[in-house]
């Protein structure tokens, strides 16, 4: 019965996404042409990959704010490593980022510090390191070698290599969180830290895994996008966090941890992409995009909080045992 109510929740979100889609599809032919859909999918890759990682840390009851800076750093590293080849470079960068994330998770667990506080520090520091590593200059793939990166813009119907990477990552994360012990542990510690500990869940492992995956995905996003563009700027991706977080929240990842699904993240992601892309494509000024994104997010989280509070009261009322009027012996 609860399974169906969970899917009802997802259906509601899907409905919201479709409404946003339809509203813009009425005005924009590119919303239903194959090339347009492909472009929409491509536009979701960057924030989508990052949102998957942010979702994991949020599910674990933590929060990784450093993803934007890390993606920028990853982009710089990927372009610097370009001479070893496109895919080796991506793999090395993702591994390095995963290691950084694991270390971050380990420290957060070891010190026992609030991860939002800790990652504010790393958010500043990673950006600084990106500037340092790049010598404060945009890093370029040599123009004569740029053809090597064409492999990243290959197309298969409405899918490109990049959007396939997004969906592959989403599928893997989905499988990981649903069907593996380690993935379920992330849900467990987010839903009840002390309960999980008492039940024997090793808290450190899921925290490290969540942060390692979050960093790896941010690294993958930064590396892919930078190599595709053939250049990386140390200042890029600073508004990434907002969109990733918005995708998670609209997709139903709970701010309190333990709840949410990867399918929801994808729904939230496209909801926000349809909105942002649509408003920009209509030629509306920036403030319209900004206001629409912010208001949508505020409405969603406030409504969700109110709804959750009401549901909690309802459950409490239901749980109250029926009074048995009987004078005890």
């Amino acid at each position, binding site marked *: 019965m609860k399974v169906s109510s969970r899917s009802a929740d997802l259906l509601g979100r899907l409905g919201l996404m479709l409404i946003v889609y339809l509203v813009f599809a009425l005005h924009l032919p590119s919303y239903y042409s194959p090339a347009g859909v492909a472009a929409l999918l491509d536009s979701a890759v960057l924030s989508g990959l990052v949102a998957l990682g942010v979702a994991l840390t949020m599910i674990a009851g933590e929060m990784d704010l450093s993803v934007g800076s890390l993606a920028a750093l990853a982009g710089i590293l990927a372009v610097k490593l370009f001479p070893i080849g496109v895919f080796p470079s991506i793999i090395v960068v993702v591994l390095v980022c995963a290691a950084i994330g694991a270390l971050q998770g380990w420290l957060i667990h070891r010190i*026992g510090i*609030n991860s939002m*506080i800790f990652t504010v*520090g790393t958010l500043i520091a990673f950006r600084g390191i990106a500037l340092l590593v790049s010598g404060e200059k945009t890093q370029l793939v040599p123009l004569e070698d740029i053809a090597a990166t064409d492999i990243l813009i290959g197309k298969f119907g409405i899918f490109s290599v990049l959007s396939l990477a997004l969906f592959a990552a989403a599928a893997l994360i989905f499988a990981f969180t649903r069907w593996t012990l380690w993935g379920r542990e992330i849900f467990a510690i987010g839903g009840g830290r002390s309960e999980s500990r008492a039940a024997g869940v090793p808290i450190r492992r899921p925290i490290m895994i969540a942060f390692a995956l979050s960093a790896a995905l941010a690294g993958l996003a930064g590396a892919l996008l930078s190599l595709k563009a053939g250049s990386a700027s140390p200042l890029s991706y600073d508004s990434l966090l907002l969109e990733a977080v918005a995708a998670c929240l609209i997709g139903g990842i709970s701010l309190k941890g333990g709840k949410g699904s990867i399918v929801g993240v994808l729904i939230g992601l496209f909801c926000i992409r349809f909105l942002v892309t649509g408003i920009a494509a209509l030629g509306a000024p*920036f403030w319209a995009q900004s*206001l629409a994104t*912010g208001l949508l997010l505020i409405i969603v989280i406030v409504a969700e909080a109110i709804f959750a509070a009401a549901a909690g009261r309802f459950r409490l009322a239901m749980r109250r045992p029926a009074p048995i009027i009987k004078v005890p012996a």
Partner: protein
Amino acid sequence: MSIMTDVSPSAARRRSVPRFVWVIAAIVALYLVAGVITPSFATFDNMLVIVRAASITGIVAIGMSYVTISGNLFALSAAALGAFLAVIFALAVGHLGFAAGLAATLLVAILAGMAQGLSISVVGNPIITTLAFSTVFRGLAALFSGNSIVRIDSDIALALGTGRPLGVPTQSWAFIALALVSWALIRRARLGRLLVLSGANPQTAIASGLNVRLATVVAFVALSVGVAIMAVFTVSQFSQAKADLFAGYDFDYIAAVLVGGIALRGGQGSPLQAALGAILIALLQNFMLLNGFTAGLRMTVVGGLVLLATGAFHLLQRRLR
């Protein structure tokens, strides 16, 4: 189970080394070291320069400290709100004159603070909520400014923005005065006490009949007023406002609060610490600037300092618990 949190007397005594002493010690140490390395650093003039550099960030950091002390971590909307309020101030001064402009700005600031405070008391996650609000404020700033520079022509504003009574810039006077007033308010005002207690333990506060929701709203109104003061000073100094003002400043404010050692679990610390944190960072920035550190290195060092300070203060606190 029974809960005993007795602490050995020696620990209780160590507890009495307040955190701001550590920050002051760090400021003095850095000042001395930097003075030895860079002779031009340890001059009275440069000290004034550092306080001036700390002022604008510090004014907002003081407001941010209210948020932290009330148990709401911090806000990511201060910079965007600053741009919005700057535009509002410039528009209102242009149409209504300085006094009315100031009043209108404060009014909008208070409303913005209330909206955020109420939302946060419902949602419960201040960081995400203010992240969403920041895009709204930035959008409103662009909308109201019509994407152009809003200029003002007000002698009072100019005097406020560029005056130097007794050789010290008005911004620094305001910074110092605000730090002291905020400190007094936190210590002595009833609302200040409400804020502290709500941050120290919201459950106990509710059980004691205190209005924790009000505390959150008050904290965000205080932050918004700090932001308004910053916006008014900045607009006055340069006689203009733009929608892209203060972009990227949020982390400066937060860094000041963190480096000042205000406990993030709330209920401890004072606005003075945020002020000291702002001065420490300004000192460090000044030293690095004068020694030609690159921007990347400067940012890395500040990030490292934030990590070091939060980690160290956190461990210090945990050991004492």
